[in-house]
């Protein structure tokens, strides 16, 4: 377990923010922590599941993938988007 800083680009928000997560967090947990700094602050909660992808890519990380297994680098930018079920 180690502190792992990422930068959150949350769907519909206007700014990218620093979000320190843990290297053992799953992508679902990462998305929750990113949402804390955007949802109900400047964006509304949307229907669907929050998913994580590397910034400016299309492929979503598996929801249960750990940060340490994702290949993400510390301070990398991630997109958090709602996937409609």
């Amino acid at each position, binding site marked *: 377990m180690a502190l792992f800083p990422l930068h959150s*680009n949350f*769907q*519909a928000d*206007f700014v*990218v923010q620093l*979000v320190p997560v843990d290297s053992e967090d799953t992508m679902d947990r990462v998305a929750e922590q990113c949402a804390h700094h955007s949802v*109900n602050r400047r*964006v509304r909660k949307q229907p669907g599941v929050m998913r994580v992808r590397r*910034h400016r890519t299309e492929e979503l990380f598996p929801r249960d993938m750990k940060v340490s297994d994702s290949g993400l*680098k510390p301070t990398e930018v991630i997109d958090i988007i709602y996937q409609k079920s």
Partner: protein
Amino acid sequence: MAIHQRNDWYDLTRATNWTPSYVTEDELFPDEMSGSMGIPMESWEVYDEPYKTTFPEYVKVQREKDAGAYSVKAALERAKIIEKSDPGWVTILKQHYGAIALGEYAAVTGEARMSRFSKAPGNRNMAMFGMLDETRHGQIQLYFPHEYCKTDRQFDWAWKAYHQNDWASIAAKHFFDDIITGRDAISVAIMLTFGFETGFTNMQFLGLAADAADAGDYTFANLISSIQTDESRHAQQGGPALEILIANGKKEEAQLKVDMAVWRAWRLFAILTGPAMDYYTPLEHRGNSFKEFMHEWIVGQFERSLIDLGLDKPWYWDTFMEELDSTHHGYHLGVWYWRPTIWWNPAAGVTPDERAWLEEKYPGWNARWGQCWDVITENLIADKEELTLPETLPLVCNMNQLPIVGTPGEEHWDIKVHTIEKDGRLFHFSNEVDKWVFEQDPQRYEQHMSIVDRFLNGDIQPMNLQGALEYMGMEGVAELGKDAHGYAWIEKVKANMKKAS
């Protein structure tokens, strides 16, 4: 004793040059300080500044300017302009003094460098006046806000800002160190006087003086006019330097310096002047929108200056035009949301009438930035102020040192961070132009740590907002930025909702 007519001696004195005999030309004007790009001294002697003055004339005029500005200040001291003005106007004053006063002192260094190291005698002569100008600007813009410090600690940031590690201070210092204190004489002539002053500040100061008069602040209007008339003179040092570079086959090098300086200046303008014009200025005093102002006064006149000199529009001109519609809205939202971290009190500027004005000036504003303000407004109505305050830092660009923002909204969301990896470190940029500036000279920029880099490096302790505020130099609650109107604008929103229902 008979006094010669000015015409008898002026051209001789302003163009006086020496042929060094005890040292070589390169020792007298080392290229890293003069920036002459190998162009010999005699080629610089044709430098012809369009605005000419003599030392006696300069002293006489400057004395009159100072007497005028200080007299108006003394006469209007009892008018209590600060107490009587809209808080939006007062915040423009605080923002201006903090961002500009000590920047003027930095400019003294740049002018001094030209005065000593420029190979062009006319440039050296004009820069001596410029050095005196900037000294005066630093002093007068520290003296005027000083009287307000006893009742409002934020005015102390006129002196304090450049001595702190506030994120806005870091951004300003990074920019001015890049175009002024850390450049050779000819680069200063191009990047400071042509790129920044001719391109932006000269017109900005004209507009600001008019806005001040419109807001009834004649003290500030006089102060700014007094400064602007100096700027319009010493800003003309870059043009003739560019002409010499172009005539001697250095157009590409000259264009590069112009392109870098203009882009960097634009970023600073977007975060300072954009919010001031479109959000802080009370609606009844607003004339042009920031975008209209930029098109009419900055873009048009700067394009003409470039073409007249034989330069091209910067390669990123289309991106620049697109940003006039968007960037400052994001910067304003960021400044307001992270308001405890700045020394001025940003006016939200989003009452129903103000939003209608924004929508008219920037069609689609409500579906973009308006969506974020909707949530903020609802939180304030529901008494959830804590949700309108930050719990983390924004990602800051490794070039401009400002938060990386983009267009929000469910239908319009568009943020593109540009990232490069160098020696295991990731560098993030607001867009391709900021990245391009960095890539022109990575060694120059890569050692710099942004506020986020410093936080992650453990330089900021404790690692929370309180630790960050202390690191930024905030001394007590009185210095922290807050909503300019104490959320009074929410009552207008409520009244509008009541009327609608």
